[in-house]
């Protein structure tokens, strides 16, 4: 979605962070579901790195298209989820989970505030 109408990039950043936080939640859910799977190696998404990469405009890794008619594949850019190379651990995953949930709620809260600001600007102080 284009957010060009906004003077700053806050809404855009918040949208990206919500997307990546819910993606991270999915990965954590996968790790926790596979706690007792033999030889399963936990996956990781470094949220901070992903977001700074996106903000700096580091090019995303995508499927190579060898023909102009090829579909671009999944919209989710690849190369950001990495294999941590170790088994899952209940306590650590729960900590990550709580952290991620709080961060997500913070992002949502900030987005709500931001949209409130815009609304106030549009409607003026009607009270």
């Amino acid at each position, binding site marked *: 979605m284009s957010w060009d109408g906004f003077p700053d990039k806050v809404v855009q950043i918040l949208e990206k962070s919500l997307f990546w936080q*819910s993606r991270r939640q999915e*990965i954590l859910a996968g790790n*926790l*579901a596979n706690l007792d*799977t033999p030889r399963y190696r936990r996956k990781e998404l470094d949220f901070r790195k992903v977001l700074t990469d996106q903000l700096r405009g580091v090019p995303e890794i995508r499927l190579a298209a060898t023909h102009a008619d090829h579909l671009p594949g999944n919209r989710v850019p*690849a190369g950001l989820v990495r294999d941590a190379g170790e088994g899952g651990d209940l306590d650590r995953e729960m900590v990550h*989970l709580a952290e*991620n*949930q709080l961060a997500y709620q913070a992002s949502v809260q900030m987005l709500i505030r931001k949209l409130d600001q815009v609304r106030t600007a549009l409607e003026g102080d009607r009270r």
Partner: protein
Amino acid sequence: MNIFQTMDISASGLHAQRQRLNVIAENLANSHTTRTPEGGPYCRKEVILASRPVDEFAGLLEQSSKVAVQAVSQNREGFRVEYDPGHPDADDKGMVTWPNVNPITEMVSLTMASRAFDANVAVLRASKAMALKALEIGR
């Protein structure tokens, strides 16, 4: 959608752990069974879990993975043999073979399975809270 995929993954975890609990219950219930349809004492069963990509094609790329019970294997090691000539299932030397179920091992796996189940419930709750929070945007 992302949030529902997360719930799907947690649901697979819940399902797998519940199947594991079923097998543990079966082991404990049969801890003194000396007769089975296949003959001989009951063999302890074990659940083998395997991870599985969320959907088959996307699994080729990096994807979070669900979990599923791949197999239930029978363990034929470590039967307890006891001298009890009066027992109807005793062999000609008076030895009775009891199942290889160790209640302590089973209780430990029971606790582990129920902890893992709880963890999956916690993820499910967290995902639900996140989804509800997201619904507040623009309200």
